[in-house]
């Protein structure tokens, strides 16, 4: 770090622009620390925005000279997060690189000031993260921040003794208030025979089980849940959301699907894309009072559930160029990469319309929330067999069992009106019922 502290050749690591609508990002983790060697395009940190979590690659090869934005801090796009000293050389003595210490480098290590502090920091960091089981348990029981406790064990390890001493000196959380006795006594519950947990601590075996599993105070929301929440509330507060529902007979799609072993979604997506090009006011964005209509390209968002973690809407650009098979492949690809957290920022922005597809879980109808600044979102629901009245070419009615589904579309009344939405759904329905369309 002797070189980095005197270096004059610095390259800035800035908060990247992640698609058009993202204005800020939060540093989640620094993969490199000050003094670490980093290659160009090597991941230097992880960031999080309301759209996506991603990694930032180093813009240059060199030594990390300075980290400006701390983990957890949120800064605007373009703000300098760190500096890379590009005139540093690999292999120079540094705290983070073991086994060095010859010649100039060793002298630098012994130099007072910044160098010494850094070495100390690095040592403490590596040791501070390792705690024994009993220390972890005591920390949990007493709600302790272990980083506050000075370790006396080997290499500064926080031992049980240290925790006990810390507690004795008044550290830790406040004692909970005394239980207030009530004269009311509920009936004794029937004795429930529970199997003795094999791995439970012995002294806990005799303790009564808590009545419920609810943790008082709840859990803080994850960053993704917070982001989804604020975007959904913003949408409902901004857009004039209406939902129109049409019913479609999916029997022909069912047949095509069975032949190709694909799911309904790529067929519905393909039909939706074709219909959007006929009704471009729905293939659009509405931002700052401007309705931008895309008449020759559909950038289709597909909502991908990440399980309990939340959901993300990757965008298939120029989806109009893709066949059903091509769409199926792309949908599978983005779903896999979304769940592996491998999407790039540009893959989750720039959509002109979104399809959400919760029907796989058995629901038949919903009112989706518009993914702003888009003006429409189509919710495709479960395909179920129903008795329906069908009319033959001679006008004779009969009741038949058909594979039916509801097409639920939420649209922004600021951008269009109900008649247009209904016409769109009607056209989409005709495409699905007349499959193949070409």
């Amino acid at each position, binding site marked *: 770090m002797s070189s980095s502290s005197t270096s004059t050749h610095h390259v800035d690591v800035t908060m990247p622009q992640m698609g058009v609508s993202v204005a800020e990002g939060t540093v989640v983790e620094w993969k490199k620390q000050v003094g670490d060697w980093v290659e160009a395009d090597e991941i230097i940190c992880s960031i999080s925005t309301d759209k996506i979590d991603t990694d930032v690659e180093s813009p240059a090869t060199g030594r990390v000279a300075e980290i400006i934005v701390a983990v957890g801090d949120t800064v605007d796009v373009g703000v300098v997060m760190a500096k890379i000293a590009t005139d540093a050389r690999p292999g120079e003595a540094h705290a983070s690189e073991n086994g060095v210490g010859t010649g100039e480098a060793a002298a630098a290590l012994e130099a007072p000031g910044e160098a010494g502090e850094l070495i100390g920091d690095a040592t403490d960091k590596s040791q501070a993260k390792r705690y*024994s*089981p*009993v220390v972890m*348990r005591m920390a949990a029981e007493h709600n302790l921040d272990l980083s506050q406790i000075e370790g006396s064990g080997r290499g500064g390890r926080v*031992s049980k*003794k240290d925790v006990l001493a810390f507690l004795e000196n008044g550290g830790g959380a406040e004692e909970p208030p005394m239980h207030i006795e009530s004269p009311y006594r509920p009936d004794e519950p029937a004795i429930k025979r529970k199997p003795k947990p094999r791995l439970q*601590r012995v002294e806990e075996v005799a303790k009564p089980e808590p009545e419920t599993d609810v943790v008082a105070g709840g859990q803080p929301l994850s960053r993704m849940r917070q982001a989804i929440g604020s975007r959904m509330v913003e949408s409902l507060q901004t857009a004039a959301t209406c939902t129109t529902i049409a019913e479609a007979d999916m029997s022909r799609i069912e047949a095509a699907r069975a032949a190709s072993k694909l799911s309904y979604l790529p067929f519905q997506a393909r039909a939706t894309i074709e219909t959007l090009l006929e009704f471009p006011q729905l293939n659009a964005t509405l931002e700052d009072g401007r309705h931008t209509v895309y008449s020759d390209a559909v950038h289709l968002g597909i909502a991908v559930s990440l399980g309990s973690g939340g959901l993300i809407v990757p965008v298939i650009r120029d989806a109009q160029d893709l066949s059903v098979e091509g769409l199926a492949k792309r949908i599978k690809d983005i779903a896999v990469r979304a769940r592996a957290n491998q999407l790039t920022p540009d893959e989750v922005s720039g959509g002109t319309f979104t399809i959400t597809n919760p029907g796989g879980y058995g629901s038949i109808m919903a009112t989706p929330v518009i993914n702003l600044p888009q003006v429409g979102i189509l919710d495709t629901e479960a395909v179920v067999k129903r008795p329906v009245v069908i009319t033959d070419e001679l006008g004779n009615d009969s009741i038949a069992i058909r594979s039916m589904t509801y097409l639920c579309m939420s649209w922004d009344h600021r951008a269009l009106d109900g008649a247009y939405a209904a016409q769109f759904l009607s056209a989409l329905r005709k495409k699905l019922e007349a499959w193949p369309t070409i």
Partner: protein
Amino acid sequence: MPTMTYLQAISDAMREEMRADERVFLMGEDIGTFGGAFKVTDGFIDEFGPKRVMDTPLAESAIIGCAIGSAVEGLRPIAEMQFSDFVSCGFDQLVNVAGKTYYRMGLSVNITVRLPSGGGFSGGPYHSQNPEAWFMHAPGLKIVAPSTAEDAKGLLISAVRDPNPVLFMEHKHLYRRVKGDVPTGAYETPFTARIAREGTDLTVIAYGAMVHTALEATADLDGSVEVLDLRSLVPLDEEAILKSVRKTSKVVIVDEANQMCAAGAQVAAIIAERAFEDLDGPVVRVATPDVPIPFSPTLEQSVLPQVDDVREACRELLEY
């Protein structure tokens, strides 16, 4: 209360039980006129006669087999293996007959097998072994291993009275080295662990001769060390082990037996499984490496756990 050696306490226990209960009798090699290889039964033949102090051929399988048969008929035999190493010749009778007869036929096999065990006197590979773990693995056998004169007498009386087959591991090295006050008359010592010394910072778990090694090794350490004497290996006093570990959170387990699958391995497993969240450091074992015991005194000392080995292990763990 008279002071006795560990060996005298064992003799005393047998004498008490033989005087009180005529069903109790002894079998073994050279235990009669000769008084036993270690003189544990010296004078017994004069008091109880050759029918109750039976010299046998050099045939451990026959000794244990006869003991089992007489126990099934209602007697209470005490069989001596001249050295515990020789018990391997009686392995089938112990493991497949004594240990399984109650399970198979509901018959009590009330035998006691005395096993003079352990090394430390240049006895070499056939006279120094600690074979208790062979039998811990076989269901139906109880195994006790006293470290003091008082426990030697009490545990042996309990073993004689216990309706199950009991292996009594008596450590040769302690025979005349360990002395202590021993109550007169008959008394039973339960098959549970005892705290040899109380402490708060670390627990050393041991049995037999290693209890004394542990006490000596930790007497002047910078830290309060508890020494737990298991006394009984089957049944193993899990609650006593866990109670001590909960208190100290650090454990050193000492085995004079070869390390692989020794009694201490079972103790370590119990701690890992049931006291994980109470540990403040790795469970440390000090044991004899998996080699035969050498004749050479220097080599023998280098394989058997010594006071310095235990002290160093404790010091390291205390500093962890």
